[in-house]
C-alpha cells in the first residue's frame, strides 16, 4: 500500500514539474533590426538595399539537428514571414549569430527584408513545423515582431524648459529573456546596440541648420482656441465655431494649423558617445527658437529628414505642464514671538481677534478716596500678524560624499538657507499701551540657517543653527533697536515623529498616480515632537524720537534663553503646540529671570484657494508670561484667529 502511495506521489510530482516547466517556457521573440556595420571606424547602415532590415528570431527550444542541417542547406522551409494572411517571399534562414563558436545553439533564425518594405504595416513570423530535439513537433502561428528600442518625447527630462527625445535601448530580462539568455546572446546584442547608438548619436550630432529647419514640432495649447489662418475668411456665430465663407462648412483645425516651433538643436545631451552606449539610451534636448507654451499643451514631433529607423515614427506627448508644479508646504508652525520666529516660509499672514485680561485704573466709587482702584478687565482687539520674506529664501543642500558606498549606516549632510530680508510684525488696533507693546512690533532683518543632518531618514536627526540680525521698532517706527540672535534647535529623530510623516505610510483614499494601495498599513499612534531650544541675544537701542509713552528705551540686551517646544497631534488636522521659554538676563536689568508660555490648538484646513504652495488654519491660543524686553508685567492673552501660510512664492526662492 505504501509502495503504491509512493508511486502515485512520484508520478504526480513528475507531472506537476513537467506542467510547471512547460508553463514557464518563455515565448519565442523576434526583433526588427537595421543591418549596421563598422566601416572605417564608424558605424554605418548597409548599402545592400535588399538586406537593409532583418528580423532576428530567438526560439525557446533548439531545432532538431537533422532539420537544422536541411534548413541550413536550403533543402526545406519550416516557416516564414507574413503580413496578415499573406505569406511574403522572404526566406527564413539560420541566423549568422546562431553559431558564435563551433557549437550551434539551433535557436536563432533570421529573415532579411528590403529597404522598400512598408514598415507601417504589421508583420508576423510563423513556423509550420518546428521539430525540437526532444522530438516534439511544434507549430507557431504568429510570433509578433518587436523592436529593441523605445522612442518617446519627454517633458521632465532636465532640459530646462525644452522637451526631449529619448531613445531607450535598455533590455528588461524579465520581459524579454531569450535575447539575453546566453553570454553569446548578450555580446551580440551589446554589439548591435553599440552600432545603433553610435549611428544615431552621429546622426543627431551632425544635423545642419537646413535639416533642423525641416523638423516639425507642433504644440497644441490646451486652454487656447486655435483660429483659422488669416487667409481663410470665416464667421464665428458662437465662440469656438468657425463657419467658412459658404456659411455651411465648419472649419476644423488640422495639425498644420497648430503653432509650429522651429528647432535649433537636437544634439544629444549625453556628453560622449561612450557614455550613451554605457547607459543604453540617448537623450536629445529639443531646443527651439521660441519657448514652449506657458499653459498646458500637447506636442508632436516628426523628423522628415530620412532619420534612423528609431526616429521615423511621429512622437507625441500629451498634457505637458506649462509650469512645474511643486508640492504643498508643510502646515503652519505656531511660534508667536515677533522677531524671534524662524524663517521657514515666504509668507505667514494671520488675522486675530485678541481677548486679553488687562489691569485698568478706575476712579474710586468712594468720593472720599482719591486713589484710583485697579481692576482687571478683559479687552478685545484686532491684530494683523505678518511674516514675509520679500526676496524669498535661498537654500543649498550638501551630501557627505565620502560615505556613499561605505558601511556607514546613515546619510549625513547639510542644509544651508539664507533669507536676505525678512519682515516680522504684529500690528494691533488701538493706542500703544504697556499691555499692547508686544502686539505692536515690527522687525526687519536678515536670517541664515545651517542645518547639519546627522541622520537622513523617515524621522531624521538634525541640528539647526539659526543666526539672525534684525532691527526692531514700534509700530510707528519711533524707537529702534538692533539685535543679533543665535539659536540652536536640535531635532532628535527618536522623540520627533510628526503626524504627517506617520500618515505618509497610512491608507488614504487617493494616492499618487500609479501608487499601489497595498503598501499602506494602519498606525494607531498620533504624532509627537519635542524640540529643545537654546539661544542668546545681544543688542541695544540706537534711535529714539518721541515714541508713545509706553515705549521705553530698552537697556543694552545681553541674555541667554532656553526652552522646549512640544507639538502633539493626537488626531488628523488638529495640532496642539506647547512652548515654554526661560530667559536669563545679564547686566543691570529690572528682571533677571523670566518665563513665557504659549499654548495653542490649531485646526488645519489644508490648501488655501487650491494653491499647493499655501495652506490655512483656524487657531485658539493662550499666552502667559514675559518676553523681551520685559518692560511690563507680561501677557495673559487668549486668542482666536485665522492663518494663511505660503512657501516658495517669491523671487529668490528655490526648491528645497
Amino acid at each position, binding site marked *: 500500500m505504501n509502495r503504491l502511495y509512493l508511486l502515485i506521489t512520484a508520478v504526480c510530482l513528475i507531472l506537476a514539474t513537467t506542467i510547471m516547466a512547460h508553463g514557464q517556457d518563455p515565448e519565442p521573440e523576434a526583433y526588427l533590426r537595421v543591418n549596421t556595420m563598422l566601416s572605417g571606424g564608424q558605424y554605418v547602415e548597409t548599402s545592400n538595399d535588399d538586406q537593409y532590415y532583418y528580423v532576428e528570431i530567438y526560439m525557446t527550444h533548439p531545432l532538431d539537428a537533422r532539420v537544422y542541417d536541411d534548413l541550413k542547406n536550403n533543402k526545406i522551409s519550416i516557416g516564414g514571414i507574413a503580413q496578415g494572411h499573406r505569406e511574403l517571399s522572404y526566406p527564413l534562414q539560420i541566423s549568422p549569430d546562431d553559431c558564435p563558436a563551433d557549437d550551434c545553439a539551433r535557436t536563432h533564425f533570421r529573415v532579411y527584408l528590403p529597404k522598400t518594405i512598408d514598415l507601417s504595416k504589421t508583420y508576423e513570423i510563423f513556423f509550420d513545423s518546428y521539430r525540437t530535439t526532444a522530438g516534439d513537433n511544434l507549430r507557431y502561428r504568429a510570433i509578433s515582431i518587436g523592436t529593441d528600442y523605445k522612442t518617446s518625447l519627454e517633458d521632465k527630462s532636465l532640459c530646462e524648459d525644452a522637451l526631449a527625445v529619448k531613445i531607450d535601448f535598455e533590455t528588461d530580462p524579465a520581459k524579454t529573456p531569450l535575447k539575453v539568455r546566453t553570454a553569446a546572446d548578450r555580446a551580440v546584442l551589446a554589439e548591435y546596440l553599440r552600432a545603433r547608438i553610435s549611428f544615431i548619436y552621429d546622426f543627431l550630432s551632425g544635423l545642419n541648420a537646413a535639416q533642423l529647419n525641416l523638423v516639425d514640432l507642433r504644440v497644441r495649447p490646451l486652454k487656447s482656441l486655435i483660429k483659422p489662418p488669416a487667409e481663410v475668411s470665416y464667421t464665428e456665430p458662437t465662440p469656438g465655431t468657425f463657419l467658412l465663407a459658404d456659411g455651411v462648412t465648419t472649419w476644423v483645425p488640422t495639425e498644420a494649423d497648430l503653432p509650429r516651433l522651429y528647432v535649433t538643436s537636437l544634439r544629444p545631451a549625453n556628453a*560622449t558617445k561612450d557614455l550613451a552606449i554605457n547607459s543604453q539610451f540617448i537623450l536629445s534636448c529639443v531646443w527651439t527658437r521660441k519657448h514652449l507654451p506657458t499653459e498646458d499643451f500637447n506636442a508632436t514631433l516628426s523628423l522628415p529628414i530620412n532619420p534612423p529607423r528609431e526616429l521615423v515614427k511621429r512622437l507625441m506627448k500629451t498634457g505637458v505642464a506649462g509650469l512645474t508644479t511643486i508640492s504643498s508646504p508643510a502646515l503652519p508652525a505656531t511660534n508667536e514671538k515677533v522677531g524671534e520666529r524662524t524663517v521657514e516660509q515666504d509668507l505667514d499672514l494671520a488675522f486675530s481677534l485678541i481677548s486679553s485680561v488687562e489691569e485698568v485704573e478706575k476712579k474710586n466709587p468712594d468720593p472720599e478716596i482719591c486713589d484710583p482702584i485697579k481692576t482687571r478687565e478683559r479687552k478685545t482687539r484686532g491684530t494683523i500678524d505678518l511674516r514675509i520674506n520679500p526676496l524669498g529664501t535661498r537654500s543649498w543642500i550638501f551630501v557627505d560624499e565620502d560615505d556613499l558606498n561605505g558601511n556607514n549606516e546613515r546619510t549625513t549632510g547639510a542644509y544651508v538657507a539664507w533669507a536676505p530680508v525678512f519682515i516680522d510684525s504684529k500690528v494691533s488696533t488701538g493706542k500703544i499701551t504697556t499691555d499692547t507693546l508686544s502686539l505692536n512690533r515690527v522687525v526687519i532683518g536678515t536670517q541664515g540657517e545651517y542645518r547639519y543632518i546627522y541622520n537622513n531618514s*523617515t524621522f531624521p536627526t538634525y541640528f539647526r543653527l539659526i543666526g539672525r540680525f534684525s532691527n526692531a521698532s514700534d509700530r510707528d517706527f519711533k524707537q529702534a533697536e538692533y539685535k543679533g540672535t543665535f539659536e540652536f534647535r536640535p*531635532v532628535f529623530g527618536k522623540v520627533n515623529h*510628526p503626524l504627517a*510623516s506617520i500618515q505618509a505610510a497610512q491608507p488614504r483614499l487617493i*494616492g*499618487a498616480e500609479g501608487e499601489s494601495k497595498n503598501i499602506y498599513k494602519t498606525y494607531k499612534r498620533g504624532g509627537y515632537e519635542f524640540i529643545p531650544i537654546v539661544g542668546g541675544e545681544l543688542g541695544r537701542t540706537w534711535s529714539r524720537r518721541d515714541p508713545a509713552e509706553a515705549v521705553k528705551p530698552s537697556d543694552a540686551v545681553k541674555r541667554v534663553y532656553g526652552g522646549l517646544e512640544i507639538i502633539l497631534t493626537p488626531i488628523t488636522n488638529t495640532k496642539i503646540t506647547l512652548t515654554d521659554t526661560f530667559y536669563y538676563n545679564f547686566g543691570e536689568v529690572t528682571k533677571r529671570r523670566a518665563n513665557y508660555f504659549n499654548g495653542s490648538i490649531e485646526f488645519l484646513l489644508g490648501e488655501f484657494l487650491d494653491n499647493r504652495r499655501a495652506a490655512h488654519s483656524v487657531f485658539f491660543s493662550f499666552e502667559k508670561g514675559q518676553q523681551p524686553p520685559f518692560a511690563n508685567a507680561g501677557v495673559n492673552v487668549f486668542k482666536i484667529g485665522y492663518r494663511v501660510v505660503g512657501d516658495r512664492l517669491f523671487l529668490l526662492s528655490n526648491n528645497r
Partner: protein
Amino acid sequence: MATREQSERSLRLQLERDAPNRLKQAGPAWKEATMGFYYGNTQNSEISVDMAIRASTLRLLHEDGTGLPPKIWKGLVALVNTSTTAAAAIETMRFATAHGVPLTPV
C-alpha cells in the same frame, strides 16, 4: 550615465539605509510608493528627499567618473519631491545622468 537598473539599485540602496522599515512595509511594490512615504511629509522631508536623490545620483556619477552642471542638479531636485513616486525618481535620476560631464582627472 546610468542604466535604469543601476539607477534603481542606487535609490534602493539609499532607501535601505534611510528608511528600512518603510521599504519593508512597501515590499515588492516599493517603486510605486512616493518619496514622502519613505521620508515623511513635513517641511524637513523635502530636504530629506533632496539629500536622498543627491546621494543616489552622486553614487551613479561616481561610477562613471562624471559630474553634473549646477542647473541640472537644480532641475533634478525640483522634479523629485515628496509626492514623486520612487519609479519616477529613478527615471528622473537616469535622465539627469545623461547630462553628466566627464570629470577631468586630477
